[in-house]
């Protein structure tokens, strides 16, 4: 990754043009030409630095359900419980964290009522309580990472 790649990542984490030739417009702002921008985005995607080029959705505005949940998992059962949790296609992220509540995962579903079912199924398959912490309020920041 060089200086130009960094500029592309920093400039394009939002505000991509919705126009006939969006890459040409975005390239112009960065002082590049269209072909070079396309080639660099393709390479960054292949390298895994960017996971996607496109939209980040608002789950609730699409009519879906979204929540963050946590579990307290005994150390000797951690991998087994993680396998159960991760087997649900609705589980989007799952992280081990340093706390008594040591497993934290995001559940996103097409329909809001499915959230409760997924959490109940996880509880019954693992025998462990799931602590559901859906957001009450979001304070807007815009997720940005400086490359």
């Amino acid at each position: 990754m060089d200086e130009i790649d960094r500029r592309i990542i920093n400039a394009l984490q939002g505000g991509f043009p919705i126009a006939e030739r969006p890459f040409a417009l975005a390239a112009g702002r960065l002082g590049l030409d269209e072909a070079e921008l396309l080639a660099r985005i393709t390479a960054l995607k292949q390298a895994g630095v960017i996971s996607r080029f496109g939209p980040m959705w608002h789950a609730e505005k699409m009519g879906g359900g979204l929540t963050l949940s946590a579990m307290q998992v005994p150390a000797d059962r951690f991998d087994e419980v993680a396998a159960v949790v991760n087997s649900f296609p609705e589980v989007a992220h799952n992280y081990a964290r340093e706390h008594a509540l040591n497993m934290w995962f995001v559940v996103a579903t097409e329909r809001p009522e499915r959230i409760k079912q997924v959490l109940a199924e996880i509880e019954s398959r693992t025998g462990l309580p799931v602590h559901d912490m859906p957001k009450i309020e979001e304070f807007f920041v815009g997720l940005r990472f400086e490359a």
Partner: protein
Amino acid sequence: MELSDSDHALISVIASGLPLVERPYRAVGEMVGMDEVEVLARIEALRDSGVIRRFGVIVRHHELGFRANAMAVWDIPDTEVGEVGHRLAGSDQVTLCYRRPRRPPVWPYNLFCMIHGRDRATVEETIRGLIQCHGLETYSHTVLFSTRRFKQTGARYGRPLAAEVGHG
């Protein structure tokens, strides 16, 4: 915003990303039987209504060198949490900020901030700075670093959709 069937078709085609070609919206239109003008108008509407939160590159923060990721949480009285949340969200280092329910006795915290950094020491320093800057010394708080990432796919919405949701 009420989504139509053609919106859903469009969403499932662009969910995994825009085609990396000179006229991506025309290419998308060919896949769903819409012309370019119509695709541009629908995507603009999805963006303006907030269904699309952001549009552009979606990075893998770990691969970008942000190896440390912490969830910093506070127990802030309900009457003050809105104001404190707004102030923390306005800090450059905070990448996500939510109010969530407490789950006593196991979980007494109601304000959640995600903070990413190149290494753990930097993130710890950032959090000390936030506490000082925003006068949070008297509130109970803790920091949960992630030790393993098991899964970071997008969310799926039944139809062939993949939407990244933010709480990494």
